[in-house]
């Protein structure tokens, strides 16, 4: 319950700090599933994007919002072993496995360096992930979706180009969507972890 209040306060602060810089960034995401997530899909995800905004509270610190979409998918031919109480079996066939992750988070960031020069930053995103896990096999499709509370620490570079407050944005983010609901197949252990490389643009402005 406390988390909800903290998120609400961060959103209010981020929307009411009008006096400072607004940094908007849009990035293409390359995702790398790790841990248990990679057991379902191990291939890198080349499709994904993030749209985020940061409202600076002073020259170094900001609060903001982060929205994204990452897709992980692969073709897999590994047989699936099934165990019941008195029987067991094997199901084989071509599988298309996919995970769609939609993070919706509030963020806090600390920036190092002058606003007009290259800046580095570290930050933490806190919020929710809507994650859709899907298995296509034969003509059958099994979907499993859950909302997860999650954290995403990140770090990166903002490199100004030209003089119109446009910058190149390079970042790395670790996503941890906490256990929620059940995984496809019924396992109670349903958390997701993946790395993201974010490549895109950042735009700095003072109006909103």
């Amino acid at each position, binding site marked *: 319950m406390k988390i909800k209040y903290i998120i609400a306060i961060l959103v209010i602060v981020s929307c009411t700090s009008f006096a400072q810089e607004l940094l908007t960034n849009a990035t*293409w995401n390359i995702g790398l599933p790790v841990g248990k997530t990679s057991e379902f899909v191990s291939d890198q995800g080349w499709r994904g994007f993030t749209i985020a905004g940061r409202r600076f509270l002073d020259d170094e610190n900001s609060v903001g919002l982060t929205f994204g979409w990452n897709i992980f998918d692969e073709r897999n031919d590994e047989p699936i072993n099934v165990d019941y109480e008195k*029987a067991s079996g094997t*199901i*084989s066939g071509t599988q298309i496995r996919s995970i769609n992750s939609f993070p919706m988070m509030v963020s806090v960031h600390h920036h190092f360096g002058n606003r007009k020069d290259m800046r580095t930053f570290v930050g933490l995103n806190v919020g929710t992930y809507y994650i859709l896990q899907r298995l296509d096999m034969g*003509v059958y499709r099994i979907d499993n979706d859950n909302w997860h509370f999650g954290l995403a620490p990140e770090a990166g570079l903002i490199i100004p180009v030209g003089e*119109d*407050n446009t910058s190149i944005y390079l970042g790395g983010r670790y996503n941890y969507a906490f256990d929620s609901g059940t995984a496809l197949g019924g396992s109670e252990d349903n958390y997701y972890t993946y790395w993201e490389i974010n490549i895109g643009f950042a*735009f700095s402005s003072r109006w909103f």
Partner: protein
Amino acid sequence: MRKNEQIRTLLVLIFTAVTSLLITSCYPDYGLTVEDFDIVATFKDDAVNFQTYKTYFMPDSIKRLADGAIGSSNTQYDDEILQEIANQMQAYGYTRVTVEQGADLAMRVGITTSTTYAYYPGYWYGYYGWYYPWYGGYSYAYSTGSLFLTLFDPDKMDTANKILGAVWSGTLNGVLDDTEPSKLTRTLTGIDKMFNQSPYLKLVP
């Protein structure tokens, strides 16, 4: 200055639109062929030791579980299917006998088919609601067939409690929209896969 900011905002919107389009339109098809839609599933009774069996009985015909459905009454390849099952059973060390000789196991073979009708409403259906429901939508149908192999142990049959005594089952499910020779090849490959993924059936001499 104001104009520059508007251009930047426009760039963000274009980036978002292009990325969204890439994500939604470039879903890979993985080069799937009709064979890739075949599924083979096998199950066994964990309490059974297959090494205790030596002989089996199998009828000379395949039971149609959905007579009249598309393809289900086509008996063109029944002999090839039954022969492949017999070959696999023999390779695993089982001897085929007649009912009169009293078999340890009974192999039942069944086929069923079904047709699924589906409608894809098109991209704009949800957006314009009922005004343009026909725009971009189309309907399609596909037929699937399943081949069922079941090994029964007559000694485990309990008619009073409706227990059939099945100790092993193999199922092949696939799309039927294919040429006849290809369907046969896929079926025989599927039978081989059933046995390959059930090594516990193999009798040790």
